[in-house]
């Protein structure tokens, strides 16, 4: 896949307060950018700007290829089963074979046993993994991950790192905002 994500002089302001400015960076296929920094510094806002959900106060964000977002809000219907909730989103993606994509994502994240469990019964970490399964199932080349390791146990963090590495090996891009240490091989790092 050919993918690209470029920030050109991007600034972000929330409620009149400038969070960061003059951010320029270009991510080519296979590259990852790790955004670190203390709470409230604008990591999540940067992810939302990259997703096109928040217009930047200045500068421009360009992207080639579809984007997938893992954010704090999990966006899954609580009363539906994990497989059905993921299936809803997979069918909205502009890709063939939604059921197969969901099954593969559940398998990759060790969620097969939870496929029939209603989303509202999941723990925080399980919910996070299901959210990540949606990113995986979308097959989007650009991953935007906001605190992906929140609530995950050590094994799940290792799996997350392996999946991101695998995604990059296939030419994908990852933009990861985190306050926890994540092992991403030769990723660019920005400290806000």
């Amino acid at each position, binding site marked *: 896949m050919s993918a690209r994500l470029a920030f050109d002089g991007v600034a972000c302001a929330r409620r009149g307060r400038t969070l960061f400015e003059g951010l320029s960076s270009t991510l080519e296929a296979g590259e990852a950018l790790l955004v670190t920094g203390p709470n409230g510094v604008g990591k999540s806002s940067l992810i939302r700007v990259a*997703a096109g*959900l*928040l217009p930047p106060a200045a500068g421009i964000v360009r992207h080639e290829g579809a984007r997938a*977002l893992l*954010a*704090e809000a999990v966006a899954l219907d609580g009363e539906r089963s994990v497989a059905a909730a993921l299936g*809803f989103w997979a069918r*909205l993606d502009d890709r063939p074979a939604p059921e197969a994509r969901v099954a593969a994502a559940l398998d990759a994240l060790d969620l097969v046993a939870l496929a029939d469990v209603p989303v509202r019964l999941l723990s925080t970490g399980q919910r996070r993994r299901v959210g990540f399964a949606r990113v995986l199932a979308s097959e989007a080349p650009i991953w935007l991950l906001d605190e992906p390791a929140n609530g995950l146990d050590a094994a799940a963090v290792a799996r997350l790192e392996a999946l991101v590495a695998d995604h990059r090996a296939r030419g994908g891009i990852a933009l990861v905002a985190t306050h926890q240490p994540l092992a991403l091989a030769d990723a660019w790092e920005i400290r806000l």
Partner: protein
Amino acid sequence: MIALVLRDLRRAYASGGATLIVAFFLLVAILFPFAVGPDQKLLARIGGGVIWAAALLAALLPVERLVAPDLDSGTLDQLALRGFSATTVAAAKIAAHWLAFAPPLMAATIAAAGLLDLPGEALLTVEIGLALGTPGLAALAVATGALVAGLRGAGAIAGLVMLPLAIPLLIFGAGAIEGGAGGLKLLAATSLLLVAGAPFIAGAAIRAGTE
């Protein structure tokens, strides 16, 4: 778009929303004979207006659950990321809300007409009026739901925003019972205006909410 309508429709029925609306509608209709006394002539005369007022209140009932949960859960973000415009999402929500509340409400109207001793031809006019007017009510409810999503005390504010705007529907809807075809045409025009305008207003409110 169809997937969005079906999802909202399923959620409306799964959360008991549609049943609640019908129960609420019938309760309001039952309340009036108790309030004004068992005078058959009087009840028959005000019956159509009572049904319209009850329908309006019933449409307002789920207003907090139409948009706010999707805003909180991040569903609107994920839809925006997949290229759905906020206007499309709002239009889907209007269609789903109408499908969830209008058909059960129109069925319940037959029972309400019995309670209020409404004559047959008046019932027919009320049903035609509801068929024309409820899309406008649904559009108004979704637009209001989008405007108040994320506010504290959203339910009370929603009532203050929506009820005055619904007055034209109420006037032409209840007026059609005596005014006949002319009233129904005005009702349809008002309803059409609301259905055409509401997706854009609700869409703008959703965009402002997700930023």
